């Protein structure tokens, strides 16, 4: 549960994700998805409640819990003025990956996302898709058991989106990485996720596999099921400081 002053952003939600599962968290704007992810990943302190990742209590043991997961944020968190290789290397050092395995994994992961020949290039010259691929590669260096992705394919073209989901599915299949992601792209959630939870106004209103949700709402596509459950009204939100910074960031990028 998370309260910001009088505003209850996340109202007593409770759920569990099975090991090696791909779990999608869907919801309209302002539903509480990002707040939930932040609580799960130690970025925000819950007002009440408990979080367990890989059996570890996230609130009591931040540091240990942090080594069990990797995260790809919605907003870029790469260092523009460093090279792809440097971004990977520093992440590896931060997570305490020893030098030899670090170097091996960097090579393996950069080749996996097809950025190995760009390793010495500055990230600021990468396209949005390339940056996202790099972030996914980076999130995996310390071989986390869980990978969190907050709107990972927002704004990317279909080819790149396809590539990224292929990497993630491969990770899940071959390494058994549990994946937790949020998205607005319903077809992706339908195709990729094993189970889905739909959140609105800070509460989970439905949970289950894509087939189960469609059956429950007697609809043919996940998108229709979603609309049936959350209503078709547009959600207005106030642009906060973060949105202003995002606009600023986008303007800078276009130059």
């Amino acid at each position, binding site marked *: 549960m998370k309260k910001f002053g009088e505003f209850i952003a996340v109202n007593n939600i409770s759920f569990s994700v099975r090991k090696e599962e791909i779990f999608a968290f869907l919801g309209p704007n302002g539903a509480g998805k990002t707040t939930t992810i932040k609580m799960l990943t130690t*970025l925000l302190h819950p007002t009440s409640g408990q979080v367990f990742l890989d059996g570890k209590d996230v609130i009591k043991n*931040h*540091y240990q819990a*942090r080594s069990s997961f990797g995260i790809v944020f919605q907003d870029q968190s790469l260092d523009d003025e460093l090279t792809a290789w440097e971004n990977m290397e*520093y992440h590896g*050092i931060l997570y305490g990956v020893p030098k030899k395995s670090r170097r091996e994994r960097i090579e393996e992961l950069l080749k996996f996302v097809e950025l190995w020949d760009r390793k010495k290039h500055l990230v600021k010259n990468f396209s949005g898709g390339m940056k996202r691929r790099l972030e996914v590669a980076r999130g995996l260096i310390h071989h986390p058991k869980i990978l969190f992705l907050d709107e990972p394919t927002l704004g990317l073209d279909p080819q790149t989106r396809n590539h990224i989901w292929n990497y993630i599915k491969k990770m899940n299949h071959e390494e058994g990485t549990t994946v937790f992601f949020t998205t607005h792209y319903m077809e992706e959630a339908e195709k990729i996720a094993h189970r889905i939870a739909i959140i609105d106004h800070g509460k989970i209103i439905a949970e289950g596999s894509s087939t189960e949700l469609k059956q429950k709402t007697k609809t043919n596509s996940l998108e229709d099921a979603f609309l049936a459950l959350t209503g078709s009204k547009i959600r207005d939100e106030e642009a906060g400081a973060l949105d202003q*910074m995002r606009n600023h960031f986008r303007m800078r990028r276009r130059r």
Partner: protein
Amino acid sequence: MNIIYILWLRQIKRYLRSKSRIIGSLGQPLLLLLALGFGFGPIYQKAGGGNYIQFLAPGIIGMGILFTAVFSGIEIIWDRQFGFLKETLVAPVSRMKIMIGRTLGGATVALIQGLIIFLISLIAGFRPTHLIFLPLALLFMFLISLFFTGLGIAIASLLKDMQGFQLIMNFLLMPLFFLSGALFPFQGLPEALVIIARIDPLSYGIDGLRGTLLNLSHFGMLQDFLILGIITVIVLAIGSYLFSKIEV
């Protein structure tokens, strides 16, 4: 340890890779040095003050360090949302290490900036009296850098976005610079200005620089060093505390 090193290294690399930013940020100090130095030179000489460029150079070096240091601290606001900082906040690393790495990195960059200005002032005619005191001068420069980087980080930890930035520029940095005795000596000043200068941390830094480079200290170099040293420790402690409280 490795962690502190990479955070430090990262700041340096970022600095060295943006040549245009380096040159741009040298513009203002250089302009002041040349315009005020050669502009006020003759009158200052006539009023019995001696060579103005000699007097002014440490003040300009202090200015360069002040601005660079505070800006690198404030970069955190941006970093936190769109950059590396978010990464570091989620990693299994203590905030303390991140703070140390970042502060040392920012302070080193400010120091390098100060050194460049020093070299430029040598070209403009500045001549330190005793070169053996250069290491001490460097110490003062580093202390100033450390203090203001810490201050920048402390302020940045409290702000949510870049909007408070303009306020800080105009109501904090400019007064800190102009009222620190960087541009004018303390002799004969109205009481009020002297009091303000005594509160301004930069005054002690610049005074220390003048002491080591020109043997022209007003407060006494030991006093400068002690005061600057103590407030630096305090500001770093406050900065670390505020930094550890950042939530993204």
